[in-house]
């Protein structure tokens, strides 16, 4: 069988010269599932991955912030019996503890809200139930974060 046949087919001899040359290239077969200009853009972002990562990062920070908070509020200096308006005023006089509490508030609320979002997604089977429970969750979360932030920033030790 000669490669110079006028009706060159793709099937050449097992050994020997290829039927294709620079002037007669082999047809290109596109790789399966390759992204091309015709492939539709994905409609999903990385939200779930970012949320997963946030749970781990905020978790590590919260371990330090919350256990420090528990030590100060419940263990040192007579535990819970010392807490009162004067004690709060003394601590929030320092920007260090203001930042500590603000960071703890934001991270704990977002960490908890995302946790409860996962729980709702797992157990609420009807789409409508999920919608309402998450609406309630997000409303309560935004309200609580804003209220707590406002209280830390506008605290007035001489309110009376």
């Amino acid at each position, binding site marked *: 069988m000669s490669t110079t046949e006028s009706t060159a087919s793709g099937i050449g001899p097992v050994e020997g010269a290829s039927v294709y040359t620079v002037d007669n290239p082999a047809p290109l077969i596109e790789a399966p599932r390759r992204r091309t200009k015709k492939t539709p853009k994905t409609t999903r972002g990385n939200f779930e991955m970012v949320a997963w990562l946030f749970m781990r990062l905020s*978790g*590590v920070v919260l371990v330090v912030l919350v256990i420090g908070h528990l030590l100060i509020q419940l*263990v040192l200096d007579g535990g819970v019996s010392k807490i009162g308006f004067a004690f*709060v005023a003394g601590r929030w006089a320092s920007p260090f503890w203001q930042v500590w509490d603000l960071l703890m508030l934001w991270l704990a609320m977002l960490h*908890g809200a995302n*946790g409860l979002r996962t*729980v709702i997604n797992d157990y609420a089977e009807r789409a409508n139930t999920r919608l309402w429970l998450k609406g309630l969750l997000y409303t309560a979360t935004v309200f609580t974060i804003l209220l707590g932030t*406002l209280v830390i920033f506008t605290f007035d030790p001489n309110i009376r």
Partner: protein
Amino acid sequence: MPAGTLYRGREGMWSWVAHRVTGVLIFFFLFVHVLDTALVRVSPEAYDKVVATYKSPIVALLEYGLVAAILFHALNGLRVIAVDFWVKGARYQKQMLWTVVALWVVLMLGAIYPVLGHAARELFGS
């Protein structure tokens, strides 16, 4: 109720269940805690009045329960991070859980006096 709610039992599943339950409890406490602290913006009297109820022996017991939930969630959370990011994490997840439980027991024993001491003094006198 979906059928077959028991997944595999044993350490992996039960630590996951406990992590969920403690997480939800802590989150609900957090709402209440931000609200009660917000009373410092109302008046010192309003805040001190509510905090006074936190010093009663029954609430001291609830505080001990809160500490128990937070310590478990914190320690087991670090274990979850180790399972996810440490190459041998999944292989040692059981050993890590029992380490978490042992640490938790030690810390809870240590918390008895600081958290429940004032309640005991109030109940039985000092």
